[in-house]
């Protein structure tokens, strides 16, 4: 049942949004840093990693996200599970690199007809790519985990993103839940009166799926119109231009910037 699997994805996705909020409420190092500073530092760390050509430096750099995560009371497990997927794919797609890079052979396997040779240079290119991707993903994940949605909106406001765009952000975030609930309702309704599942795929069943999709869409749209009415009647206004103040830079933020730069500097000099 493809519909069910994708529904589970949806619900889990929504759930993890709530999870983001949870960690951002903890009182740790990153949570106390000005969001704008965090963003700048994250961007700096990611960009810097692109210029580092050496595997050992990259590996050393990976200590930074781990230390930051510990200092921010973000469970290491949360960080590791959230950063597993993308580096894994990076690894998978660069597997061929192990074999097609020319250089000194490190491993040799003979499968009768095939003769596969893994080269040292190949291993190096493979690892550099994967480790760098992990470092980037981990840095971004820390930023995400330590910043709730509200803080994120404030940060957007402080970098002068137009208020209408920010209102659209918050509307989207709300509607995400609204549409998930509406889809859930439709599926429950269908489930409750479906006694015999037919698994064949034919023109008829495709037509039914299309009709279901259409109903879900129009229903969700009409629900969101009414939710919009409710939001409006309690003060929501897309064109509302109340400027939120830029959170001031404090000593702590500056200290954080300084220490990260120093650590990076040391790494590069070494």
């Amino acid at each position, binding site marked *: 049942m493809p519909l069910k699997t994708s529904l589970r994805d949806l619900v889990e996705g929504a759930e993890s949004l709530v999870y983001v909020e949870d960690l951002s409420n903890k009182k740790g190092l990153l949570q106390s840093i000005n969001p704008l500073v965090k963003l700048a530092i994250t961007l700096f760390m990611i960009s810097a990693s692109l210029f580092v050509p050496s595997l050992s430096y990259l590996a050393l750099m990976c200590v930074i996200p781990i230390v930051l995560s510990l200092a921010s009371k973000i469970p290491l497990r949360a960080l590791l599970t959230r950063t597993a997927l993308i580096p894994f794919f990076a690894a998978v797609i660069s597997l061929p690199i192990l074999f097609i890079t020319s250089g000194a052979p490190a491993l040799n396997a003979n499968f009768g007809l095939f003769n596969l040779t893994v080269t040292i240079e190949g291993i190096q290119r493979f690892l550099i790519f994967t480790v760098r991707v992990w470092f980037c993903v981990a840095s971004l994940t820390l930023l995400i985990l330590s910043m709730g949605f509200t803080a994120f909106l404030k940060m957007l406001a402080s970098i002068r993103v137009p208020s209408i765009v920010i209102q659209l952000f918050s509307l989207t975030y709300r509607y995400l839940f609204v549409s998930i609930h*509406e889809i859930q*309702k*439709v*599926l*429950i*309704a*269908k*489930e*409750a*009166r*479906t*006694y*015999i*599942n037919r698994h064949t795929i034919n023109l008829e069943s495709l037509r039914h799926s299309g*009709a*279901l999709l*259409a*109903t879900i869409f*129009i*229903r969700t749209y*009409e*629900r969101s119109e009414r939710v919009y009415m409710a939001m409006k009647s309690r003060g929501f206004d897309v064109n509302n231009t109340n400027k939120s103040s830029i959170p001031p830079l404090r000593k702590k933020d500056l200290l954080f910037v300084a220490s990260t730069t120093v650590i990076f500097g040391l790494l590069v000099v070494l």
Partner: protein
Amino acid sequence: MDDAIVKVKEVQFSYPGGVNALRGVSFEIRRGEKVALLGPNGSGKSTLILLMAGLLTPKKGEITVFDEKTTSKNFQKLRQRLGIVFQDPDDQLFTQSVIEDIEYGPRNLKIPEPEVKERSAHILSKIGIQHLENRPPHRLSFGEKKKVSLATALVLKPELLILDEPTANLDLVSRRSLIDTLNELNCEGTTVVVSTHDVEALPELADRVIVVSHGSLLGEGATSDVLQDSKLLDVAGLEPTSIVKLFLKLKTMGLIQDVPITVKDGEKKLLELMKTKTERTT
């Protein structure tokens, strides 16, 4: 043969968020009964209903419907003998037109097309929604939606009919005709379970009442007994009907012995009372 159609045994249930909705509930519903679930908001009535329909499965304990556990694999098939109306009509309706929605269940059961048509036409006129036939269900008034969702269950002619708050949002004439329809079905042998806050309709809706509160069973008994049991009603956060209130007053004054629960009985009682009164004083 055992005539318990639903057996709920020590059932516990909690929602994913960690909310403990049911903390060990047991009761039975016999074939042909009319039973009402009563209890304050959030007491677990709807949860019980979803569990009985096999749409949720108990954490602990077990539920058997038609002698089959609701967790068993063949329960989906068994559900065709059971009709359910959700509290929220939006949980019930999912197609593009009222008629399609009503016919979905029977079609899924492979009932021959002419009979499907006949049944749906009959139910449309019975519920009084012929004029809505081709409208999309999500664009109806709330009460109209509720009526359509009642129709989608009634059209299945199930042996066991479970209705969550069926009279809420209905206008009074529709409420009356719904009650009559349910009683007719019950006379023909359908077992009817309703959850309701509508104590005024209770005497006509149910013979027996099961009271839940905070996920536990508080008590059960014949409707007329429960309606007069002000202690039980109080604990369950309920109120007697206005007729019962009126006559309870007369009872505390020693004017009458037993309290009538319907308007008709009330009338009779009053007339009697006046007569005896007149007689006694003359």
